[in-house]
């Protein structure tokens, strides 16, 4: 395998046609059976991938009714979403308040202990 073959192999996955390889490498491919075979594989791959654009996967029959149901109940969903947010906010506020109370209590105890220590 020549240096050109190696470069062609490295670059083929990134191009959409042999012409995109540049004049020199495209010229090499024209005369090299190994590179032609490799280029043909990538062309086949791209063609087969392109062919998938018209091949549909049938959606489950429940999809349309489930979308309609979701849209019908969007207000509920949003209300539930809001209540979840509110609940989370309430938990966060409670946690913060709890932490503040604990910190205050801790400070009072420490001060109390220090005073006790100094008095002794």
């Amino acid at each position, binding site marked *: 395998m020549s240096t050109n073959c190696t470069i062609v192999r490295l670059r083929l*996955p990134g191009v959409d046609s042999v012409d995109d390889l540049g004049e020199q490498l495209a010229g090499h491919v024209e005369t090299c059976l190994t590179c032609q075979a490799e280029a043909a594989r990538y062309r086949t791959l791209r063609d087969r991938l*392109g062919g998938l654009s018209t091949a*549909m996967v049938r959606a*489950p029959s429940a*999809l349309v009714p489930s979308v309609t149901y979701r849209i019908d109940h969007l207000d509920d969903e949003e209300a539930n979403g809001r209540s979840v947010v509110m609940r989370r906010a309430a938990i966060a506020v409670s946690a913060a308040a709890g932490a503040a109370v604990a910190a205050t209590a801790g400070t009072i105890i420490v001060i109390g202990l220090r005073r006790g220590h100094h008095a002794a």
Partner: protein
Amino acid sequence: MSSLEVERYEESELVERASRGDQAAFTELVRAHQHEVYTLAVRMVSDRELAYDVAQEAFVRAWRAIERFRGDAKFSTWMHRITVNTAFTHRDRRKRTRTDSLDDIYREPESASLTPERGGESAAMQGPLEDALKELPESLRAVVVLKDVYEWSHTEIAEHLDISVTAAKVRLHRARKSLRLTLWKHQDEGES
């Protein structure tokens, strides 16, 4: 007017009505585009149950946003973009909630998914190419699907996947190379 023009006229009429809040018109659009959107979702996430959730969520997002749809692009193009974004949101959500790697999720055996239409799906989705696509890491699969199946430009892919154009090109290169090695593996082994 050709049948295609009539179809487009009817679609723009439906979009117009839907954007004014006509839910029945939107349901018609969902009915018309369900297979296309579901197919894209399946190709993006390689898991039919997850694709069902993605397709459903994409349509709900579309309904929420249809008021702002100006009709510059085709409705299907707009839906494709929403579906791709939704697929990525679901991926991120799964990443946060599950410790399994995404590739493990996407390699769930077919029998683990539940949709009854599975047996009736297009034969074109079967076969070595689809299997090879499933085996790709998700970040590579998304790029090769959008570029080679849906003909998105590198710039569009980069924008939607929030990566650079160079990264999109590198991923495409790696994805194609991996697919090529998988699909012609036996031939390569025979040659060596």
